[in-house]
């Protein structure tokens, strides 16, 4: 069953491409249907789980000679990330309804294929399969930016490709290095996550291998000073591309840090933790100051992502229950609020044909509904209690404070700079008087519903995050206790590689 969590999206992608011949809107409906089916499968797996830290597990040999298997597994953390992916996938399809009018089938093919790659990244527990998925989500996203993007799309897409590909190469080397080190120690070549977890490594090797993973993930996250691909890629991508990039693709970086860097290299990760936390804290402030300086609304939102992801980096390397729960909430809340802000920018661009805030102003009088929604998301972005982002940032800082006080206090100053850029956006885009008289329409029912659902989700996260925290708790337990995890995943009677096709419930 678990294999359908990737399969549905791949099949949906193919169907969407072919269906364009039938009707122009058919790919959109197929994409929605595929995401709905994905959601159905996920829920049925989740509710059917028998308990225990891993909800589902599937392992079949793939390239047996090299110890590569097709190993997928699902825990609480993965479920949350997949739910976020589905939700933002639907939002992305809805957001492109009017914006994408050329090659609709191909667009949705790429969109679903990106999501399939993302699902693979979240599910894969074989490092080779993980790397395969990592690369697989990159290529269709490159096409989304390069084909359907804005003015500087070629520059942005190539920059995105080089940054991700270059850092991915480091990860590939580190994966190979780790597998070889494992073979040297035990005599078997394997890429299985559980087998590699307790590879004995001498400190120097461990550090360099860890660095290979670390760089790949912090480039994706992105953390200062590897963030510069992000503003270009986000700004030039079509709205759906920005939503998926910010909401989901960045999260694969966070997920990689959580799932691989710290559990695989606990010693080396502990060594780099202070530096990583400082990078996070610097990123919070650096991103915020840059966001404030932008006049392109989309670039402002993009830099605000750099700032928010700084909190994630800080929280991951604080590595305690409070901070990690905070990271999960921050991941989900940032996905929703920043995704929503990109949609708002898309709506504004569609109406005014500009993203330049110097030419906006006064939207609050012209389009009160859109302005009210935009205001709400800006406020979520500045971390106001009652909306999800606050819970995430608060828990990260609370957890980080016990580990690295100085870095946490610096990051906390980001609460002030977030107000500065978020209110700048509100002032320049929504308030003031309009520069020129204009007749533009307010959000339609479909648009209001899409954004309204995101508001509702953020309010729910802000007021009652406990269900999310509980769901994440199992996954965080898996990250923190390697020993129990191996037993649980492999089952008591058989070691991982000996069981050819253990299906999840």
């Amino acid at each position, binding site marked *: 069953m678990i294999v359908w969590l990737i399969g549905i999206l791949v099949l949906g992608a193919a169907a969407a491409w072919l269906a364009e011949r039938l009707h122009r809107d058919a790919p959109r409906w197929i994409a929605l249907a595929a995401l709905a089916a994905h959601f159905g499968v996920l829920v049925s797996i989740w509710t059917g789980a028998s308990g225990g830290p891993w909800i589902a597990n599937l392992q079949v040999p793939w390239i047996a000679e090299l110890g590569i298997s097709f190993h997928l597994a699902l825990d609480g953390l993965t479920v949350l990330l997949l739910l976020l992916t589905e939700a933002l996938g639907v939002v992305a399809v809805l957001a492109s309804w009017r914006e994408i009018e050329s090659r609709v089938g191909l667009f949705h093919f790429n969109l679903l294929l990106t999501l399939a790659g993302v699902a693979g990244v979240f599910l894969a527990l074989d490092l080779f399969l993980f790397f395969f998925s990592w690369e697989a989500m990159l290529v269709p996203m490159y096409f989304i930016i390069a084909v359907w993007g804005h003015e500087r799309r070629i520059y942005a897409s190539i920059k995105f490709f080089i940054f991700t590909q270059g850092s991915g190469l480091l990860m590939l080397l580190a994966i190979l290095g780790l597998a070889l080190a494992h073979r040297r120690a035990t005599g078997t070549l394997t890429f299985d996550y559980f087998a590699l977890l307790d590879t004995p490594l001498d400190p120097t090797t461990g550090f360099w291998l860890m660095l290979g993973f670390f760089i790949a993930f912090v480039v994706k996250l992105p953390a200062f000073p590897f963030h*510069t691909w992000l503003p270009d890629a986000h700004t030039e991508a079509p709205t759906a591309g920005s939503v998926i990039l910010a909401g989901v693709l960045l999260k694969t970086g966070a997920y990689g840090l959580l799932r691989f860097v710290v559990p695989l290299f606990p010693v080396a990760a502990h060594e780099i933790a202070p530096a990583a936390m400082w990078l996070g804290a610097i990123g919070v402030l650096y991103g915020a100051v840059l966001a404030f300086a932008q006049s392109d609304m989309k670039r402002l939102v993009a830099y605000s992502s750099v700032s928010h992801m700084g909190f994630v980096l800080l929280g991951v390397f604080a590595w305690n229950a409070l901070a990690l729960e905070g990271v999960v909430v921050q991941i989900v809340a940032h996905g929703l609020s920043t995704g929503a802000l990109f949609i708002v920018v898309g709506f504004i661009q569609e109406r005014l044909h500009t993203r330049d805030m110097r030419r906006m102003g006064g939207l609050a009088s012209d389009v009160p509904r859109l302005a009210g929604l935009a205001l709400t998301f800006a406020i979520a972005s500045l971390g106001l209690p009652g909306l999800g982002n606050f819970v995430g940032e608060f828990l990260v800082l609370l957890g980080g404070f016990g580990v690295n006080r100085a870095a946490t206090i610096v990051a906390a100053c980001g609460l002030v700079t977030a107000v500065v850029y978020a209110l700048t956006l509100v*002032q320049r885009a929504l308030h003031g008087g309009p520069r020129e008289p204009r007749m533009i329409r307010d959000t339609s029912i479909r648009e209001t519903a899409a954004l309204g659902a995101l508001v509702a989700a953020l309010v729910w996260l802000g007021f009652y995050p406990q269900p999310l925290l509980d769901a994440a708790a199992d996954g965080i337990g898996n990250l923190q206790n390697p020993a129990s995890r191996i037993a649980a995943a492999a089952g008591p009677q058989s070691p991982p590689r000996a069981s050819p096709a253990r299906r999840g419930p």
Partner: protein
Amino acid sequence: MPPILWLIPGLPLFGFVALYLSAGRMPHRAAAAIGVGSIGLATLLAFAFAHWFLGASLPGDVYLETAWRWITIGGFDPAVAFRLDPLSLVMMLVVTFVGFLIHLYSAEFMAKDEGYGRFFAYMNLFVAAMLTLVLADNLLVLYAGWEGVGLASYLLIGFWYRDPANGAAARKAFILTRIGDTAFIIGLFLLFHELGTLDIATLMARAHETWATGSAVANAAAALLLAGALGKSAQLPLQTWLPDAMAGPTPVSALLHAATMVTAGVYLIARTHELFELAPAVEFTVAVIGAATLLLAACSALNQHDIKRILAYSTMSQIGYMFLALGVGAWTAAIFHFMTHAFFKALLFLAAGAVMMRLNDEHDIFRMGGLWRRMPVAFVSFLIGASSLAALPLVTAGFYSKDMILWGVWSSGPAGPGLWATGFVGAFITALYSFRAVFVMFFGDARRTPSGRYGWCIVAPLAVLSALALTGGFVNIPSALGNVNSFSDLLAPVLPARQEVTTASTTQAIVMAATSLLVLLGVYLAYLTYIQRAQVLRRIATSSPARALAGFWFGGWGFDTLYEHIFVRPFLALARLNRNDIVDACYGGLVVASRTLNRALSRTVTGRVRAYAAWVAVGSLAALAIALFLQ
């Protein structure tokens, strides 16, 4: 009582949600019904709870109600819980009742505004957040309310968003208070890591068990909370936002920036006073900051032209009195002054608004004049409010609360008389600027003809607040005048009286008489200057040193300019300088380097075989040489 305390902040919140969802499309009548009605119901409920609470003697004088568990992670489990004790009871009653009167007033005052629904949405949001703040049982929920009122303040200051100046004032308020808030939340991290909880009662008990008086960590925690309080309550050095906040509609100034929100800092310190007792240095700082702010702001109030700015500086100054009281441990006096101040300052703002709305939104007191015959309702209200602000002896509420503060400061120990002197001088200046406003606005030559008339929605709140501004002080009367202690007795379980130096009540009477005389002198001086127009005074006022000083005071002692130069401009310059991201330029350098290398190497591809042969020969020789050398 059924467990419905949560409805008191809940009802305004529902009002906000309903008005938010209508997106301003609701008819005025419905918006007013929801906006005013939700606060009205909350007020009724608050009084019902007060009646029950005062009748039922609960163990520890506390009623607790948990709405739901907010976050549970291991040992960190703050609940959304509300706590009713005498302190939060007083706060809750003042917030709901004064809030209700101001909402009622706004129903008429804002009637012609196109953003009517939006206005009530924001006001309801504010009341909901403020009630969460005062009723919160733990510091995280308190912080949530604290941020909520900050947001409402931002939205309401910038309510007329078409003018960018209003937006600038709103952002200034939000950013300056957020600086304090960030210190506050770091304080929460520190408290949680040191003491393992954010529950206020447990926290205070554990602090007393764990920390020695004057220990570094206690001082740090208290200082961080103090920074939060300074931002919210517009005290030095985070005070500069308050005068600009007057850009909002007048009912907003009355409710947020006079009666309730700006006193949140006072409430926070009173609520955590046990922590401040463990940090005597910080506590003394509270007193010093209060004393400095009260003098500084009072001087600035002396020569403003804009009536709302006079009142804004006066609010800063009066909160300075409250901080002074908190700093010497006279917590009950601070809360008492909070209450009377809420009555008379809300009254002053509403009366000023009533004047302005009939003069075509005129703010300048020197363009008013002679209004007492033409608008007697506004005049009487403003006069009562100003008398109470000036603390005219015996007949006003402000007299009793200010006297309680000054007596508490006087008898607080070695530094007492010195601090008392600032409050004493402040009382004189307060009387002077209050009656300057009264005399200039309502007496002398009439310059403008008012239009329109008041409906009952405006008159009723003015009447009720006038009554309270006169009689609200009778709940606590000093021993020399009759010795009523209802208010201090009510608060005693939460805010016990500190061991005071027992001085004969004759000293108290002498101190009180001196202050009263000084206040009357201040009123007389204002009379001489603005009614009699005494030549001597004119000459002093127009002399060049006096004018330079006046200019300095007028601009709020140059703090704005100072901050502009040391914070705002460097930040803007930095942001502008790095607008295109220096890090990206480094990667750009990488691109340029590889392009240059590419161009250099391409140049060697000339197609000339002889050159290639030469390169091959040179390369082979070099390789050989290296091989030999390495051997």
